[in-house]
């Protein structure tokens, strides 16, 4: 039985990998239909088998499945293995990842149907771009599964970087666009900054535990908690704090926490299906997953937890503000993702790992839904992404409209919807937390509720209600010369079906799992919390089932804040539509600050990118060219050349130099030995 499950695990990762290889290498031969069929079958197999594992690990509660597949290498007595650990945490991730991925695969058939239009005529790269896209998203699914199913840090890092690679390839998918290749390079490099910390964290783990195997490390964690390390003379740091902060730096990159958030908004250059899959539902939550996975380590460092709380809180609130002024539909959702990732991070910092992971799950559903719905709108608007040129679309695309509304209601935490349960849980957990920084974090997540509701419904009203602004004027970039307005229409079933399929868990997944995941012991031994940090345990005492929570939800501050946000959005964008411009004019300074994204990009471009190039030029021109070459090498070359010229009539050619140098060297060395000896 267990052997069979081992094979199931291998099949789960192998199926999408195989699909990716076939679609990628033989895309020309099998054609578009062949490529999407083979990859969809691969991911569907992975999804169904993940359900098998879910059944075994969660429903049957038959214990975790952990096994090694092969030995990657053995060095210095340490064995690095490739292996799988399927416990309640990873199996939940597997189901979410493969489900969302499957939906995105289906959706892509519709979204990329006319991809040839995005490529210059005769472009070789554009020839099989459709097949390549499917290959990439299947490869992503494989990588993400390797990440969540890893049973050791090495493989975790493999998956971590592999998803980064696919993200790089997909952000830059339309590689003729300069903005896309700028965004993918930026995404990769900013992630590498995070990985820099992450890798050092792994090195620290190996140093103090002499293994990279999860189980062995977590079992020994308690014994190492009093160790200290001196990073520079005279200071002492707790080893656990150093390890945890280094690992968390990795999470900051991948999960786009301030100040490493800058890559995520730009990643919207990629096609919308991957914005949903990679940059909203799954990859960006890898950091959250990782910290939850490492809970036995993070529990041992309150310093690290406080750090996480504060970083998460800043991200949750301040990235939300940026969502308010965006006009590009995808960017609103992108900033919303940043803000929600901040919520999850705050939960981790408050030791409410289960709440963070629970929000990860509900968020995966409703955010993938919102992104795919945004994509559906973009298709209907003929690749228009500016919300100021939309409006009134609810008449033309009812399925997209309703599902978007569901997604938005879930996002703002309307009582009863999935997002309500997970978000409320986080807010309550932070409220109960005693860690330094919890007060600040509580304020941020509470204020964030208003902001979330405001930008979400600003988007909703601008897109689906109000005046049909796409009928106004012939917008400047309509270069085709035809003035007839494209009549928006509902998108094909391959697009709407995934919307519906994602809308269902966006409503139900919260109420279904709040009891187990939020307050019960759903994750079992996968997540460990010390008694003094157990905020969810405290909250459980006042918990009386999902209905009680919903009813109570109408009485709490978050509900009224969310309602206020929705009403404000309605007032400003439906009722008194001239007011936003007035506010903007009055608060020009604030608007500019937000428009410039707190000047983070400008600063990074100037300081890091420009600074690095400056240092490079300096070291090259002054160090290499002038000092080493100019003074030392060419100087001696000139000397030798001069000597050679003097005696060239005696002997010529390189042989002479050789002999000359040899004799000189011999004399010098013998002299040294005589003096020393």
């Amino acid at each position, binding site marked *: 039985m267990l052997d069979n499950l081992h094979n199931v695990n291998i099949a789960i990762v192998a199926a999408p990998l195989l699909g990716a290889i076939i679609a990628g290498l033989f895309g020309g031969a099998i054609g578009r239909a062949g490529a999407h069929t083979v990859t969809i079958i691969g991911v569907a197999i992975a999804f169904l088998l993940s359900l098998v594992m879910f059944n075994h690990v969660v429903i049957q509660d038959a214990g975790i499945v952990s096994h090694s597949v092969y030995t990657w290498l053995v060095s210095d*007595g340490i064995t690095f293995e490739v292996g799988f650990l399927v416990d309640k945490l990873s199996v939940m991730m597997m189901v979410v990842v493969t489900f969302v991925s499957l939906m995105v695969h289906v959706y892509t058939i519709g979204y990329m149907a006319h991809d040839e239009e995005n490529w210059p005529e005769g472009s*070789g790269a554009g020839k099989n771009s459709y097949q390549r896209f499917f290959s990439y998203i299947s490869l992503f699914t494989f990588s993400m599964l390797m990440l969540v199913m890893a049973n050791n840090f090495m493989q975790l890092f493999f998956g971590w970087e592999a998803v980064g690679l696919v993200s790089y390839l997909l952000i830059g998918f339309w590689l003729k666009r300069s903005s896309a290749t700028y965004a993918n390079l930026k995404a990769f490099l900013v992630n590498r900054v995070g990985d820099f910390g992450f890798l*050092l964290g792994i090195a620290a783990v190996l140093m103090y535990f002499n293994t990279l195997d999860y189980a062995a490390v977590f079992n020994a964690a308690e014994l190492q908690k009093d160790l200290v390390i001196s990073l520079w003379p005279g200071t002492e740091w707790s080893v656990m704090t150093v390890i945890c902060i280094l690992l968390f730096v990795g999470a900051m990159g991948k999960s786009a926490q301030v100040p490493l958030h800058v890559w995520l908004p730009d990643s919207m250059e990629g096609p919308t299906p991957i914005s949903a899959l990679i940059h909203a539902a799954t990859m960006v939550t890898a950091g959250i997953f990782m910290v939850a996975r490492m809970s036995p380590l993070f529990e041992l460092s309150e310093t690290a937890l406080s750090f996480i709380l504060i970083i998460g809180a800043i991200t949750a609130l301040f990235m939300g503000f940026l969502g308010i002024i965006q006009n590009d539909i995808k960017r609103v959702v992108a900033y919303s993702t940043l803000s929600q990732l901040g919520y999850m991070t705050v939960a981790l910092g408050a030791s409410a790992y289960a709440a963070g992971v629970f929000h990860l799950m509900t968020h995966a559903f409703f955010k993938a839904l919102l992104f795919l719905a945004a994509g559906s709108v973009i298709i209907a608007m003929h690749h228009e992404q500016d919300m100021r040129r939309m409006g009134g679309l609810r008449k033309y695309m009812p399925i997209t409209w309703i599902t978007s509304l569901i997604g938005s209601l879930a996002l703002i935490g309307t009582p009863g919807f999935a997002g309500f349960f997970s978000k409320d849980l986080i807010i309550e957990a932070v409220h109960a937390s005693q860690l330094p920084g919890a007060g600040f974090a509580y304020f941020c997540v509470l204020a964030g509720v208003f902001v979330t509701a405001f930008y979400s419904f600003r988007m909703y009203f601008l897109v689906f209600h109000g005046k049909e602004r796409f009928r106004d004027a012939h917008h400047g970039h309509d270069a085709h010369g035809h003035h007839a307005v494209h009549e928006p229409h509902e998108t094909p079933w391959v697009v709407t079906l995934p919307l519906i399929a994602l809308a269902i868990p966006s409503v139900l997944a919260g109420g279904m799992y709040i009891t187990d995941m939020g307050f019960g012991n759903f994750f079992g031994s996968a997540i460990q919390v010390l008694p003094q940090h157990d905020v969810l345990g405290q909250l459980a005492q006042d918990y009386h089932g999902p209905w009680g929570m919903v009813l109570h939800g109408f009485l709490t501050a978050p509900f009224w804040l969310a309602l206020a946000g929705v009403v404000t959005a309605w007032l400003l964008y439906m009722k008194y539509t001239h007011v936003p411009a007035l506010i903007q004019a009055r608060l020009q300074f604030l608007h500019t600050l937000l428009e410039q994204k707190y000047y983070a990009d400008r600063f990074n471009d100037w300081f890091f990118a420009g600074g690095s190039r400056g240092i490079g030029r300096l070291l090259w021109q002054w160090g290499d060219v002038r000092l080493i070459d100019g003074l030392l090498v060419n100087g001696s070359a000139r000397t030798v050349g001069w000597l050679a010229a003097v005696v060239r009539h005696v002997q010529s050619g390189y042989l002479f130099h050789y002999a000359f*140098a040899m004799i000189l060297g011999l004399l010098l060395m013998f002299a040294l030995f005589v003096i020393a000896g």
Partner: protein
Amino acid sequence: MFADLPLLSLVIWTPIIGGLLVLAAGSRNALEAKVLALLVALATFLLSLPLYSGFDTATAAMQFTEFRPWIATWSINYHLGVDGISMPLILLTTFITVLVVIAGWEVIQNKPAQYMAAFLIMAGLMNGVFAALDAMLFYVFWEAMLIPMFIVIGVWGGPRRIYATMKFFLYTFLGSVFMLVALIWMYLQSGSFAILDLHAMPIGLTAQILIFLAFLLAFAVKVPMWPVHTWLPDAHVEAPTGGSVVLAAIMLKLGAYGFLRFSLPITPDASQQLDWLMIALSLIAVVYIGFVALVQQDMKKLIAYSSISHMGFVTLGMFIAWRIAANTGSMQGAGMGIEGAMVQMISHGFISGAMFLCVGVLYDRLHSREIADYGGVAHTMPRFAGFMVLFAMANAGLPGTSGFVGEFMVILASFKANFWFAFLAATTLILGAAYTLWMVRRVVYGEVASDKVAALKDLNGREFLILGVLALVVLLFGLWPAPLLDVMRPTVEHLVQHMAVSKL
């Protein structure tokens, strides 16, 4: 059946004699010469395979040994043998030689037979360097090997080839002369040129330090280590593609091999005394050169600087042993550093070779190495773009490619020595990705930059084959490096034990 053959002699002399035959054939018919060269290269590669399959992974002792007195008066012997450090490097050499011969097939129009012959002879001599167990024999191969490289750059090189060869010459000869002095001094003390005897020879600290410095000059130039690295970018820029490939893939490894074969075991106490110097130079190579690579305009220069930066990991991994012992109280981890260095050497052979071949593919078509002359190559050469991105990712140390393994192991090991060593070494994650992928962005992505780029033809079958084979190897060693590690383990363990014992 292979056990009785003098395999090491065969992998040394087959390409040398074959090279001479190619030279002879070349005067009659160029095609005949090329086919002969390919057959010789393939034969050498096949002859080197039993070195792996017949290798005993349970012992640190020298294997496949051959011994014949040569110059009895000075007790110089023709003494060959390999262990887990040298055997993989010989395989790397024979493998890369086959690719280089194929890569030069249609590209070299000027004296193709001589070109092929030079590479074959060079391969034999480099195998000699790796297989020699007699210090004088080593030295002879070491110096002789430079001559074909010298000729390759001087004859088939670019416009500034005279400057480049001069620089190459000055650096390498000056360096190796000091090594010769050190070897002679040790012979006078011990009466033996046998490398293994020198390993066992007790030497005082001052003498050790002088010997170490003499070796350092010879080996540091070859690696090359900062600040004696500036010959490399010039040599690469002027060298033909095949020359660059051999230079990067194999020649740089000779210096690193020298540290493992000579410096560490012969002068362990000096290595311990001066490890701060080696570590500092290694870290400077990683960080300083990483920044320099970032601003290069010439693709070959960029990859050359990237090589120097990657070789910094090799020397770092080798010299952290005593810092680990000082920091943690045991040598555990030192082996990982050295093994990581070895893996990095092999992997860098594949990746840098592949990167130079990629640049060669572009250069053959457009006759420019300037990044600015390209852009949007993916539209006209999609297959090439796929390979280029793969090798670039390997160069940036992506897990799953061989480029990750060595860096990973060295960073893990250097953390045990000192947090800041690991910190500085790990900056390569950012810098390596920055310079490599920025180049990819400017060359491969974007809109088609010019009519010349628009007219580019994608890889032909020959190019596809070479890059495809390299891609498979890079992925294989990235996904399953265990076989490589299994081969070198006993040797490295033995070396670490040897290093831990003072010779004073």
